[in-house]
């Protein structure tokens, strides 16, 4: 018996007929060939979020981002006029990685007036222009204007910095669609207290997106994180989302959440009771927030959290108590990726608020460790191909959509690059 209303078609999945209800083939997550295609078809063509403006508040602040899947490394910098720019992180002289410290493959950040190559000392200003060449007279008709850093398309949306390798890609705002538009105005910029995490995960990148775009698993996999009685109730109850939305390549899961604060204090663990904080964050709001229309789209009073997936690999989670979380999944091989998570809160005004944030971040890690470890267990077994088709339920609609979308991007790319038949032959 459904607890929350579903669309007239009877299910969320059938409400979006293009998605289909048949068992899903996971070859897209275990095939090295498919991953090679995804690199160009998806990561070479879509808007990729690489950070936030608060990471580079002042002129000369920069950070680098390794994009293995593309592959490239980019350097993102605040230029002299205050604009955010991105460049491929390569020196025009002989190709050394321009910005790095100690380990060339590790990301870095800092502040500079210009970028100086470690190899022969060529220098570039914050706008990417080549300004100095060591022993310039030794070169042959070198036109410095022709050797600036190679720019990468870079646009900022609500403080989130995105890059795109495709010069023909539509502008970022259009790409983010209705789901993006509905999030505009959320006070991301006020939540500057950041805690960031990184994990190397032995699975295809899409499997971790899968794990965070359904909560069908939550009462089971995470059952023991609730107090025993509550856990039994949750398991019997199962999980139903308040709403799902599919918008272009993107998706949203909107969830209920009765834990912040719980109706009955006995529902939560003793430390949560004292701290007034838990997985859903500190129970007491620190700022008033007028939620933008795209958040809690069904306008249900039970609302607790929304998970937005902006294809391919960027998630924003908005929590009812007034904080947000981002996830990124950066593939490094068909069966490996780097997972990143950042929790953002308003700056704590006292020790109590700070300790409550500690509870939220520790809870995040406890759940994340459980989620993360099932992935390798899944990857290794689907790679056996003993079973190739998997039935997904209505609460897994966003997963169907993700895998459909990935396959569609690859198919479209293949169609557009098919070598044209030479009619003169």
């Amino acid at each position, binding site marked *: 018996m459904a607890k929350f209303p579903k669309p007239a078609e009877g299910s969320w999945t059938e409400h979006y007929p293009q998605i289909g209800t048949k068992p899903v083939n996971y070859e897209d997550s275990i095939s090295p060939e498919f991953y090679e295609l995804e690199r160009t078809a998806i990561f070479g063509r879509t808007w990729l979020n690489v950070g936030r403006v608060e990471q580079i508040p002042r002129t000369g602040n920069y950070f680098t981002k390794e994009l293995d899947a593309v592959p490239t490394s980019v350097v993102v910098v605040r230029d002299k006029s205050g604009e955010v720019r991105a460049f491929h992180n390569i020196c025009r002289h002989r190709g050394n990685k321009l910005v790095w410290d100690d380990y060339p493959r590790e990301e870095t950040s800092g502040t500079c007036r210009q970028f100086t190559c470690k190899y022969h000392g060529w220098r570039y200003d914050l706008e990417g222009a080549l300004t100095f060449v060591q022993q310039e007279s030794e070169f042959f008709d070198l036109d410095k204007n022709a050797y600036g850093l190679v720019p990468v398309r870079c646009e900022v949306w609500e403080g989130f910095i995105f890059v795109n390798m495709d010069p023909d890609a539509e502008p970022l705002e259009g790409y983010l669609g209705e789901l993006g538009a509905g999030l505009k105005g959320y006070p991301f910029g006020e939540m500057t207290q950041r805690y*960031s995490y*990184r994990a190397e995960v032995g699975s295809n990148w899409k499997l971790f997106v899968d794990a965070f775009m359904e909560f069908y698993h939550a009462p089971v996999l995470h059952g023991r994180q609730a107090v025993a009685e509550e856990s039994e109730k949750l398991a019997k109850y199962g999980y139903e989302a308040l709403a799902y939305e599919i918008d272009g390549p993107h998706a949203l899961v909107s969830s209920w959440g009765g834990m912040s604060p719980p109706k009955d204090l006995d529902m939560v663990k003793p430390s949560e009771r004292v701290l007034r904080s838990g997985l859903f964050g500190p129970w007491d709001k620190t700022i008033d927030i007028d939620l933008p229309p795209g958040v809690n789209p069904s306008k249900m009073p039970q609302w607790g959290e929304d998970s937005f997936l902006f294809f391919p690999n960027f998630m924003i989670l908005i929590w009812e108590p007034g904080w947000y979380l981002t996830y990124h999944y950066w593939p490094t091989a068909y069966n490996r990726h780097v997972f990143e998570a950042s929790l953002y809160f308003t700056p704590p005004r006292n*020790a109590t608020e700070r*300790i409550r944030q500690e509870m939220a971040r520790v809870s995040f*890690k406890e759940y994340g*460790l459980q989620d993360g*470890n099932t992935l390798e267990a899944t990857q290794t077994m689907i790679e056996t191909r003993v079973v190739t088709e998997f039935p997904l339920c209505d609460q897994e609609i966003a997963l169907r959509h993700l895998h459909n979308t990935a396959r569609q991007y690859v198919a479209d790319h293949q169609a557009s690059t098919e070598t044209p038949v030479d009619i003169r032959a």
Partner: protein
Amino acid sequence: MTMLPDAFSDLEPFAAKWCIEGQDARYAERLASTMPELQAFYDATLPRLADIMSYLDGFDLASIPSEPQNHNLLLLAYSFVQMSFSVEAWGQPRVPDSGAAEILAVYEPAI
């Protein structure tokens, strides 16, 4: 001089082990502990948690790191939060079935 403020002398026996900077280091200490050690720290600290918060709220948060005893008390509270799951949820130091998984804190605010 004690590690913790005088009002928390009852928690002093736990200070040397649990006043730790950095979430990864606090998690590592939890994994390196036995359940009796975790239980003892939990039992002593849970009833004092509200006192810790109201005591520290008497100070400007930004000033706490420069006052060693207050800073230690804050770190002890972080450690309590970190290990409470072992006692309240898992009955073991480690998150169950998390053998191969690792999630590292790569950026933490100054306080």
